[in-house]
């Protein structure tokens, strides 16, 4: 039996929440021609049916709260319940109310800006971007404005990204109107310095790097890379997806990065919510501060204020001031841990990854770039096994699989990021499960999973004949 859709639970005339006592006649206020001729076919359900529907759906869903979720580059750590209560304290603020009546909110934003600047080693920050990729776009637009301002906008037309980069990096560079050039990784999995030298030049606007990179390896030649890019007038961009590994231990600013975006929904425990809302603040060095989007949060003599007076600003990238309630959660996380706690969390994320890597090697998994990994590592199954089947097998064993088939430079990749909030015995159980899967018959693996709410889904059919709404009858 398929789980019913809310539309299938609907009964004509059934009512749920009634928020209005007196029903009014629309035509008293609105001329007929503006009025809707057919009501939207929204579900008609009572409140209990609504509760059962969504509670039932939630039971067909796993999250960090239910399941080990070692998705590489996603940092699926525990999201403290404290933060949900914290966010509720600020729920009733309107973005256009008098600034004197939101001094606490502005102070929190200002403080968080200071913490994030300190943690990244940057000079100025915007909290406006709504997600990591949005932060990337903001950062690249800032770089673009900088080059244009210096009269180099027309010649610097290329953004370099390593072949191991997150897909959002090249997509962002395209959105900002740049051509993208890939820089190959060397045999050690780090950026190939010689190849990079060949690509660098006065036609390059920026290099986008993740450090540690998507193989979980720290780019040890980062100071050399930043020296070379500085010499070439190229801006160095830090994709903060993997900051969790080094927070408190090392700062992108000290490594020579000019722009940094952070994923508050990864490193700083904002819940992922099934795909957002997130938050992607962008930090910059002083020379780029004039180009930040408006408004910035400033501390003045008469309190905190929103500064719209940035003549060289790239403009706005989002309405209002960003995903403010996500900022509250990140603030609570930083204040709970302090520097010592953040460093411990980072170190334990690394320790968990290295420990799990050893366990998987013992089970027969291969590590194509077996350097000292940071918070994540990339494994390959033994010859003859498909990563897809092992991932589906893990579902049957009660685990969420790692990120699979990424980074693209590793065949059959499994990118594993356990995070620091997982216990030793969880890592061991996960490794045991991956070991056991290698003992399963091939047919079993190819058929897995068996007992999940649904089994393998027909993706080809969904692509060929997408049915995107309940009323779509094609």
């Amino acid at each position, binding site marked *: 039996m398929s789980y019913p859709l809310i539309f299938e639970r609907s009964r004509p005339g059934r009512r749920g929440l009634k928020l209005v006592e007196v029903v009014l006649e629309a035509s008293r*206020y609105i001329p007929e021609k503006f009025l*809707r001729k057919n009501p939207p076919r929204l579900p008609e359900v009572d409140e209990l049916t609504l509760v059962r529907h969504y509670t039932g759906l939630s039971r067909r869903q796993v999250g960090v709260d239910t399941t080990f979720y070692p998705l590489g580059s996603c940092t699926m750590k525990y999201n403290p319940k404290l933060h949900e209560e914290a966010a509720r304290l600020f729920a*009733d603020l309107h973005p256009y109310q008098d600034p004197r009546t939101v001094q606490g909110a502005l102070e929190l934003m200002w403080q968080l800006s200071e913490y994030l600047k300190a943690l990244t080693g940057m000079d100025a920050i915007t909290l406006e971007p709504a997600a990591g990729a949005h932060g990337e776009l903001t950062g690249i637009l800032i770089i673009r404005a900088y080059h244009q301002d210096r009269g180099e906008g027309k010649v610097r037309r290329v953004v370099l990204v390593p072949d191991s980069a997150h897909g959002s990096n090249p997509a962002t560079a395209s959105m900002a109107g740049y051509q993208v050039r890939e820089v190959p990784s060397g045999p050690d999995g780090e950026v190939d310095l010689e190849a990079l030298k060949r690509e660098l030049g006065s036609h390059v606007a920026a290099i986008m790097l993740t450090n540690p990179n998507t193989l979980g390896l720290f780019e040890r030649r980062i100071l050399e890379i930043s020296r070379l890019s500085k010499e070439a007038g190229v801006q160095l961009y830090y994709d903060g997806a993997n900051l969790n590994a080094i927070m408190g231990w090392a700062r992108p600013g000290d490594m020579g990065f000019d722009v940094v975006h952070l994923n508050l929904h990864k490193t700083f425990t904002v819940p992922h919510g099934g795909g957002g809302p997130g938050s992607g603040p962008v930090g910059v060095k002083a020379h780029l501060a004039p180009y930040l989007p408006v408004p910035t949060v400033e501390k003045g003599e008469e309190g905190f204020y929103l500064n719209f007076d940035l003549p060289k600003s790239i403009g706005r990238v989002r309405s209002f001031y960003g995903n403010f309630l996500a900022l509250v959660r990140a603030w609570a996380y930083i204040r709970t841990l302090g520097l010592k706690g953040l460093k411990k969390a980072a170190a334990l994320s690394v320790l968990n990854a290295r420990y799990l890597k050893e366990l998987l090697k013992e089970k027969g998994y291969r590590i194509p770039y077996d350097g000292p990994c940071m918070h994540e590592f990339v494994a390959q199954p033994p010859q003859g096994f498909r990563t897809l089947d092992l991932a589906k097998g893990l579902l049957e064993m009660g685990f969420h699989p790692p990120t699979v088939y990424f980074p693209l430079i590793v065949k059959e990749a499994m990118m594993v990021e356990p995070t620091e909030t997982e216990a030793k015995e969880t890592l061991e159980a996960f490794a045991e499960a991956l070991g056991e899967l290698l003992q399963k018959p091939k047919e079993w693996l190819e058929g897995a999973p068996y007992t999940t709410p649904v089994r393998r*889904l027909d993706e080809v059919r969904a692509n060929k004949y997408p049915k995107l709404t309940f009323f779509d009858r094609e």
Partner: protein
Amino acid sequence: MDYTPHTEEEIQAMLERVGAGSLEDLYRHLPKEVLNPEIALPEPLPEWAVLEELKRLAGKNQPAFKAFLGGGVRSHHTPPVVQALASRGEFLTAYTPYQPEVSQGVLQATFEYQTMVAELAGLEVANASMYDGATALAEGVLLALRETGRMRVLVSQGVHPEYREVLRSYLEAVGAELLTLPLERGRTPIREIPEGTGAVVAQNPNYLGALEDLAPLAEAAHRAGALFVAVADPLSLGVLEPPGAYGADIAVGDGQVLGLPMGFGGPHFGYLATRKAFVRQMPGRLVSETVDAEGKRGYILTLQAREQYIRRAKAKSNITTNAQLTALMGAMYLAALGPLGLKEVALKSVAMAHRLWELLLEIPGVEPFTPKPFFNEFVLRLPKEPEAVREALAARGFHAATPVPKEYGENLALFAATELHREEDLLALQAAMREVLA
């Protein structure tokens, strides 16, 4: 407190296993120059003290519950049932549903959301959400430019000024031209569409709150080979003719008005709906129905070849994380209210706004600016600076008079009413306004 489970013994055992002597050892391959920087952060606090500090900060704010402020965000009722269901850890702590077998909750809820949004907009399909209304507009316009292969955009001044600013940032990035069509007496005039225009954009109700008959503009856009993009408040679509019915090819808007907390501006969600013919140019995630290995109905992310993690530099957008949980809240709200409940909430806000308009116009020196008919927001010309009026009202416990940018005129302020307002609330605001403007 750091939320890590490790005991000292476990840390030692694990360090030994990985061949490290200490936690510091895990970082010894980093360049010395960057290791262990001085970082000034406040000392850690126990849980109760974090809350205490947050409450101290929250105490410096004046909550704007029942605010009369408008402009894209309004004080509406957030149903506890929506809060409770959206707080379930399975929804809250899931990632993007890349493993559909264990993500049917988020996937099906998203499919239902797409259906509800498409219904509201009067269009065939909707994506899984965008960051907010402004970025939904920017991405909707980029979609129109991809479809038409053109690089010129004509936007009505009736579109929210912040949305236009975001649109400008996105269009500048790709080198597209943005032209503005100034309002005439509070409404978008029908003008000839400049040659080479790929997208024509207008908002209904517009930023000033006025209802716009956009069908002629949509026709003009189509005659010129452009697509028509409508910005529409989703609550209004419980009552008003949907964008699809007046010729919009793409509809976008912000979901906050569907019972989401104002949250000082976010997170909310943006919606984006369009025709099925454009689906392969759409940005963002899409969920499709399909079947599993046993023929059982299920849901899955589809047409992923549009997206950054498959297509990289050739993706339709770089969007990855969107606003899934807040979009889910919007869907829950729509399901909780149903078509009639939604219509009632929208109409009460319309009625209260019209009553407020009458009351405020009784005050000497206050003049109407938004032409009738309007919806649940309207602009008045005040005899004083709106910032000063807003401040003086706040001192009296009222949050009203959103200052309107000067491009629309001098001393203009926006007012809104919602289902939360009673006659006595409106009278109290009127009395406070009389004092402030005296």
